[in-house]
């Protein structure tokens, strides 16, 4: 990843004189198209490992949800579905602005690239702001954080340990997702700087494209986390929220 993002300064001079070559073409590739394809493929191989990284959590979540569904439903209904839905919309918006930033590079509009990348970072930060300062804060105040201040409530009865298990999954999965968001925002800040310096063109925008793949992947993880955490077993008969 770092190799893809970092510009190949060492190779610039070798190709700078070759008229037919783009200065961005590394010597071990035949042409720009092959280089783009290789970078793209490498990112997808990494994302396949990410699918399995999150997949282990999703698989164990599925097992324990099947075993302890009543406890998981109680836990899910303690989450505020409005925050979850709003955050889904925010992330989808950030994916749109990321896709449009790449399109701006493809059409050679530098200012639009910078604007859209900054917008993507703002939306990503808004997601984290909603998650940390509203959701997790409420969870803390309601004693729902396992290992920190989790308290069994009498009305849960024998399901209480399973409610706690649900919140273990909730915090581990959303934390892991949030860490990916923070890494994504870090990548985007580097890309914004590169875009502002005019590093990307219709001919060369591989760092944007592969970082976009990562950003959209993190969006997809949330697209599954939202129904699996907030919408378990239906919300009927439950008021929205706490």
């Amino acid at each position, binding site marked *: 990843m770092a190799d893809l993002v970092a510009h190949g300064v060492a190779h610039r001079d070798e190709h700078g004189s070759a008229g037919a070559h783009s200065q961005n073409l590394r010597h071990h590739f035949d042409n720009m198209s092959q280089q*783009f394809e290789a970078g793209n493929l490498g990112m997808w191989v990494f994302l396949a490992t990410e699918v399995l990284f999150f997949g282990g959590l999703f698989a164990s979540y599925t097992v324990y949800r099947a075993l302890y569904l009543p406890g998981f439903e109680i836990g899910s209904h303690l989450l505020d579905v409005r925050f979850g839905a709003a955050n889904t919309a925010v992330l989808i918006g950030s994916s749109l602005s990321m896709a449009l930033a790449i399109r701006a590079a493809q059409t050679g509009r530098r200012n639009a690239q910078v604007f859209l990348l900054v917008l993507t970072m703002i939306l990503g930060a808004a997601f984290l702001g909603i998650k940390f300062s509203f959701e997790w804060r409420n969870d803390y105040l309601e004693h729902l954080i396992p290992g920190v201040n989790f308290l069994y409530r009498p009305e849960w009865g024998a399901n209480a340990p399973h409610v706690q298990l649900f919140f273990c999954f909730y915090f581990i999965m959303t934390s892991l997702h949030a860490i990916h968001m923070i890494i994504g925002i870090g990548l985007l800040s580097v890309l914004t700087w590169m875009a502002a310096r005019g590093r990307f063109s219709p001919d060369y925008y591989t760092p944007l494209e592969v970082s976009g793949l990562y950003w959209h992947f993190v969006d997809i993880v949330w697209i599954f986390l939202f129904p699996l955490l907030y*919408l378990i077993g239906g919300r009927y008969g439950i008021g929205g929220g706490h």
Partner: protein
Amino acid sequence: MSSHVVPLKVYIGVFLALLFLTGLTTWVAFIDLGSFNTVVALAIATVKMLLVILFFMHVRSSSGLTRVVVAAGFFWLALLIAFTLSDELTRKWSPIPSSWGPGTSQSQPQ
């Protein structure tokens, strides 16, 4: 470059479809469909995932090799979940750790 520029209205259309499906999945969750609530929620999430992969991640116009890698990632995930569940659901062998058992008001697994 191999990729072509996707028209702006395609991106906007995919964005609006994703927003609509987010609203739909939230709305459906408040209707009692029994165990089908989970099926509907996962089906909608899968459609949203496909929209993101095909359009935002440009797999619709990517090479066959890339598509195979994309499919392989999700195929492995399917194997992971299917074989885990086939084992787990055919026997009840996961007891609750005793330190998490009911009876304590303050649960702190040490």
